[in-house]
């Protein structure tokens, strides 16, 4: 995997932050993907209006497709085995609902508004993710 230019990474981050900022100023809401996804499929009792959540979730792959058309083809490597994909998905789905947020809701929106809960959640998921990778790749010799 080639290194990505920091400027491209920063441009991508600015787009993500602009999306989060726009949703706040237009609709008064947090751009959290896990909450929006739950809302879109009718699992959350409160949150964004359902149609807005559906639009947001549909927009994610559309935006990614736009980059493939206009900027560069995607080269993505998913190397996890089938059991890891299932276990990882279940943990991400359950954990983000239990903890009320993921990388976007806590990591980007929460930290930007200096929420103590989001600082704590981001610290915990970064640490547990890094520990998991360390165990798989180095302790178990993955």
């Amino acid at each position, binding site marked *: 995997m080639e290194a990505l230019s920091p400027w491209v990474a920063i441009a991508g981050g600015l787009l993500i932050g602009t999306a989060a900022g726009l949703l706040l100023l237009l609709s008064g809401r947090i751009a959290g993907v896990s909450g929006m996804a739950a809302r879109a499929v009718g699992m959350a009792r409160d949150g964004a209006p359902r149609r807005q959540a559906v639009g947001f979730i549909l927009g994610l792959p559309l935006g990614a497709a736009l980059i493939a058309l206009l900027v560069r083809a995607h080269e993505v490597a998913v190397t996890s085995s*089938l059991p890891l994909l299932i276990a990882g998905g279940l943990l991400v789905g359950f954990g983000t609902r239990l903890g009320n947020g993921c990388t976007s809701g806590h990591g980007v929106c929460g930290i930007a508004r200096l929420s103590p809960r989001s600082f704590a959640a981001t610290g915990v998921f970064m640490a547990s993710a890094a520990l998991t990778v360390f165990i798989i790749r180095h302790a178990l010799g993955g």
Partner: protein
Amino acid sequence: MRKFLPGLVVGVIFGAGLALSDMFNPARVLAFLDIAGAWDPTLAYVMGSALIPSAIAYRIRQRMARPLLAPGFAIPENRQLDRPLLLGGAMFGIGWGLVGLCPGPALAGLVLGTWQIWLFAAAMLAGMLLHHFVTQTRAPAHSLG
């Protein structure tokens, strides 16, 4: 359309940002999380720069009586660190570390058409459903994520 369209536009910009910064590539995310390996700083650049427009919007928000297209702001006010927050964060981190995908990249990555991302997204939805049924009888919690 008043609700769907703003959601769609914001989602497209968000998804474009994830794809441009290669954050839907699990290999790159895992390389960031692997602090003992060939470390890739991309995720730090992405998160750091995402905070800038987001934080500016929160400053602007403080001078607005209401958002442009909705009757009021719906920002969580809860400041308490409780067990579900920390336990949920820890579970999410383990799943993130196992595969290298979190919810945004998993959904934006559906466009790639690789079966692994579709399977992961399906399992993620199943995990959300499981949480929904487990907690259905309890009081609703305000969601951030």
